[in-house]
């Protein structure tokens, strides 16, 4: 199933946000993705962030720093974003398994250099930040209160193919 990328941004301004913060292990007893929905980022302690707040409810894109999604291999972490309609993460870097899980599910884990990321973070002072993604052109457009930034991102051909196929199961099933 193809995903919608872009929308209102939620900023998580810290490196090393881990999978236990994204979805605590006690919820791994669920066997459907949908059941995870209320628990997104439940254990994340960050100034100005409320896991039960309106900002998370409205968010369609998460913007964070380095080594996002480190820790466990649990695909419940990308899934809890997916069932909350967050299909795009933008960060400086990712833990390998989390990044692979995002693309394997047909979602986008976009990497931007720190300087570019800082420009998106800076837009927050102009108002609510909205993100648009042009995957073929590999561009992220961030806008807030009349200001905007257009930034190029790198993505491997393989990761792009996974997103276009709708995920790794679809890709692998057609090929192997």
């Amino acid at each position: 199933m193809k995903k919608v990328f872009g929308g209102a941004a939620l900023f998580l301004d810290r490196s090393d946000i881990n999978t236990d913060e994204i979805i605590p292990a006690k919820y791994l007893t669920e066997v459907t993705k949908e059941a995870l929905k209320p628990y997104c980022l439940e254990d994340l302690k960050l100034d100005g962030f409320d896991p039960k707040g309106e900002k998370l409810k409205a968010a369609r894109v998460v913007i964070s720093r380095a080594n996002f999604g480190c820790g466990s291999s649990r695909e419940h972490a990308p899934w809890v974003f997916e069932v909350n309609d967050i299909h795009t993460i933008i960060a400086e870097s990712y833990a390998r398994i989390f990044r692979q899980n995002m693309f394997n599910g047909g979602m986008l884990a976009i990497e931007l250099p720190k300087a570019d990321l800082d420009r998106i973070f800076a837009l927050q002072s102009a108002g609510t930040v909205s993100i648009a993604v042009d995957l073929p052109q590999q561009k992220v457009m961030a806008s807030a209160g009349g200001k905007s930034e257009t930034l190029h991102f790198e993505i491997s051909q393989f990761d792009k193919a996974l997103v276009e196929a709708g995920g790794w199961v679809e890709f692998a099933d057609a090929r192997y």
Partner: protein
Amino acid sequence: MGKTIAEKIFDAHLRDEPFPGAKVLNLDRVLCHEITTPVAIADLEVRGKDRVFDPSKIKAVVDHVTPSKDSKTALQAKMLRDWARRHAIKDFFDVGHNGVCHALFPEKGYIRPGFTVIMGDSHTCTHGAFGAFAAGVGTTDLEVGILKGVCAFREPATIRINLNGQLPAQVYAKDAILYVIGQIGVNGATDRVIEFRGPIVESMSMESRMTLCNMAIEAGGTSGICLPDMTTVDYLWPFIQSDYANKEAALADYKKWWSDADAKYEKVLDFDLSRLEPMITYNYKPDCVKPVRELAGAKVDQIYIGTCTNGRIEDLREAAAILKGKQISENVRGIVSPATPKIYQEALKEGIIEIFMAAGFCVTNPTCGACLGMSNGVLAEGEVCASTSNRNFQGRMGKGGMVHLMSPATAAATAITGVITDPRDI
């Protein structure tokens, strides 16, 4: 140009390179547990593809919450059990035979030098101790692994870490790996293989090498890896003796995987650990590491000895040597989970269980248990655990709880005093 062991394993297993840099490997082992596999099983059913690529290469265990604690975990175990039966996966381990996956599967001889191994569990890197490329993956990779026997990777560069010198008394593999992670950071080996080399690694048992490789992921590593040597052959001998004329022949065969002398590493790091002290984590990241003595005297509420990092017989012996004839503090709760039934039985025979129980420990069945706060041993808000596990994230062992990671010896010493204690001070 020479190759590293990881590059040799990649070359030998390459099935496809759909795009430059994307390597699809054939898999020798797809390991499964009841937390991450059921969603893959359910998805395969929905897709009308409820098949497995090769039941003899798939191994499965119920280990995270066992025996099941409620209806949800009972359903997870049942889904795995029914699936294993339906596909004639004969190496499936259930209540009475089950234990922590990364202790149980090596103990059964399933992991061999040169193998490619995946599992829906981040600590799969443990199996690199045998000279395998072993990587934790998510449920979708697991699902494709089950169905097609392949998994895609960006070929990772290798960081070689030489552990030089000799570990002092009361300082163990756990202290060494905590120190290394403290040096390189939680992001220090992301998308990299860590090849552990040097005299300290060469003199380590397989159990210690597994402790070392287990925590490669805490530095972001895709796989830890050790070169297979006579220690590896000795460990595997009961399972491979019909394949080779003698141990020397097995070793000669395994040496084909060794990294070449002129192999190219992204980085080579040398650590002389001859004066290393027992190490401990503070705060909520595994790279927040300092000598135990700098945290000595801090109060704890619970001691946890076990897990895929430190629940093996060598670990229990190490703790029991300190606990023998002593009582744990009345201010702490002590919990020990031998990692597999075999380890449990050995510990019984050696009188280790007796020592733990006489000291006041609760001995649980083999399970992942308290490590990730999913079943027993969960902390209350504000409580602190001295643990031999591998992850100290905020809330890991229970909401509002705090975990200090340490060796079994340090955990045992801390159990006796009720406060963080260097084992050399007991």
